[in-house]
């Protein structure tokens, strides 16, 4: 057994080694970097099962800002799986990158090596964030993720769309950091502590400034919610999402929509949790529910009109943030045997599988058919029955058809909301799910019912096939047997 923080150290060292190696790899082919990254991360993923928290009596300072609990371990694995799949996607996406990096014939790989190792640093940030339980480490981990995303989003520097997406993400990301830090500042000012467990303990003390000044506390929590709202793409902080998702390189869009959202929810849950059993809980819950309802409604309704598959998934990602917020909003009132952490983990686990499959298909279609519009998916079942099949599973799961992970996640969220008697939000969510069926199945219709413009087929590498089949298996298994994840979080 080894201390859990060895994992982050291993990922960072792997990233640094690949960074140095990149300079020496032949310029024609940089795929070696990505392949080594994939192997290295798989090793880290396996060693995740052999880590431990602090031993009895071990009070080294690191354990005061680094948590090792089921939640931390689950989201570490989550970050690792996401990064591995993003690296596999980036291999399939190389031809597009080479085109926009202005590579010449002799050195087609020049300039894209960074694309293969930068995700490792993001991964380390995501893993650290899963464990962070101190204001300082939360902030630093969050910024490690955000700043490496700035670079990755704007990576295709000869493509105006990617640059614009980069600038928009930069400005709004930095704005959200401003709000988030200001909120943390006030939380520190009111509690006098930076450690979340000590803040929670201080809440029980009636002399604490947090109890004496509930308005200031709410202000601070609202600022933190605004900052995290940007990260998880909640209304009204979702304005950047469609443009950034559309402009960014597709593997990075996938990374943003899965990794960034999960990290936002982990941090949000860790910070907000003590306040759900407290004098500010009613206002806090109202705020979260209002955001949740607006997010579900806007995300789903705006997706209906989209003709670009990437923008469609951007709005779909917004709507899923709404469902997750609804789960978070049930924290203070739910009495069901399953707890909120478990439901959030289940929902995000299913969301990871279905979203990554959809983006993987999109990478292949973009690289080989040259378009991200829905029209490019017409007749995909003739071009490649395999791709159409996996995308079909991903789409029906995103829509929430029974026996898929998407259904089981939504079902638990609805059950918790019913128990908490949030009937207005449930009505909005039902409208959202209905709209969801329409636009997800629009993609299925294009694939199976429409005819392709030409008879060009799509080639898929074995590695990608294995990756997509694993995710499809995960969707089906979680849809039928979600108990392992729920048990992981059972008290």
């Amino acid at each position: 057994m080894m201390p859990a923080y060895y994992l982050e150290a291993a990922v960072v060292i792997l990233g640094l080694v690949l960074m140095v190696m990149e300079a020496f790899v032949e310029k024609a082919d940089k795929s070696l970097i990505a392949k080594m990254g994939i192997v290295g991360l798989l090793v880290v993923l396996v060693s995740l099962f052999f880590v431990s928290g602090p031993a009895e009596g071990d009070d080294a300072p690191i354990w005061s800002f680094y948590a090792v609990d089921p939640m931390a371990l689950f989201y570490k694995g989550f970050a690792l799986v996401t990064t591995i799949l993003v690296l596999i996607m980036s291999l399939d996406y190389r031809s597009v990158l080479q085109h926009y990096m202005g590579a010449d014939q002799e050195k087609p790989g020049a300039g894209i090596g960074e694309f293969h190792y930068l995700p490792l640093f993001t991964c380390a940030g995501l893993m650290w964030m899963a464990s962070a339980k101190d204001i300082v480490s939360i902030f630093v981990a969050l910024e490690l993720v955000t700043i490496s995303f700035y670079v990755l989003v704007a990576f295709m520097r000869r493509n105006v769309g990617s640059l614009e997406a980069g600038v928009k993400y930069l400005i709004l990301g930095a704005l959200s950091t401003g709000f988030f830090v200001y909120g943390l500042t006030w939380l520190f000012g009111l509690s006098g502590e930076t450690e979340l467990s000590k803040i929670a303990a201080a809440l029980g003390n009636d002399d604490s400034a947090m109890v004496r000044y509930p308005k200031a506390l709410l202000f601070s929590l609202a600022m933190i919610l605004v900052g995290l709202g940007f990260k998880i793409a909640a209304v009204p902080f979702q304005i950047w999402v469609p443009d950034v998702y559309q402009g960014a390189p597709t593997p990075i869009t996938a990374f943003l929509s899965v990794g960034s959202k999960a990290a936002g929810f982990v941090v949000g849950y860790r910070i907000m949790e003590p306040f759900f059993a407290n004098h500010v809980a009613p206002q806090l819950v109202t705020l979260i529910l209002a955001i949740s309802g607006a997010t579900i409604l806007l995300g789903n309704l705006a997706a209906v009109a989209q003709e670009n598959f990437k923008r469609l998934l951007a709005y779909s990602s917004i709507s899923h943030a709404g469902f997750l917020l609804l789960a978070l909003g049930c924290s203070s009132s739910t009495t069901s045997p399953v707890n909120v952490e478990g439901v959030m983990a289940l929902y995000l686990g299913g969301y990871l599988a279905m979203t990554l499959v959809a983006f993987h298909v999109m990478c292949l279609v973009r690289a080989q058919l040259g378009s991200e519009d829905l029209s490019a998916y017409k007749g995909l079942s003739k071009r490649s029955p395999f791709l159409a099949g996996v995308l079909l599973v991903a789409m029906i799961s995103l829509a929430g058809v029974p026996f898929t992970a998407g259904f089981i996640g939504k079902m638990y969220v609805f059950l918790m909301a019913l128990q908490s008697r949030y009937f207005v939000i449930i009505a909005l969510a039902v409208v959202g799910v209905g709209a969801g069926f329409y636009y997800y199945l629009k993609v299925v219709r294009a694939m199976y019912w429409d005819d392709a413009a030409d008879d060009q087929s799509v080639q898929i590498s074995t590695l990608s096939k294995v990756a997509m089949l694993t995710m499809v298996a995960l969707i089906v298994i979680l849809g039928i047997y979600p108990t392992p994840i729920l048990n992981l979080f059972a008290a």
Partner: protein
Amino acid sequence: MITLNHYLFVSGLLFALGLSGVILRRSLIVIFMSLEMMLSAANLSLVAFSRFHLVDGLPNYNGQALVFFIITVAAAEVAVGLAIIVALFRARQTTSVDDITSMKY
């Protein structure tokens, strides 16, 4: 006598100025500068909270430690951010937000 409230007021003012700069100005460079101002606002209130929240007669240094992290992170953010803005300028010959509207649904 300058109290905690005075510092918090100035810090809130800085934050509001920064936020209005982000919303109202059209030049990316000025927007970016305003963003840094918002982070400075947080730094100022952190130091003030730390100074006025004495632990055993000493300021609460946890807050001041966070200030150093914020300064460092802000520097990293500027390094990356300005590089992206330069790349955009080379591609489009503009740094005005009114011109970066090629993506519309």
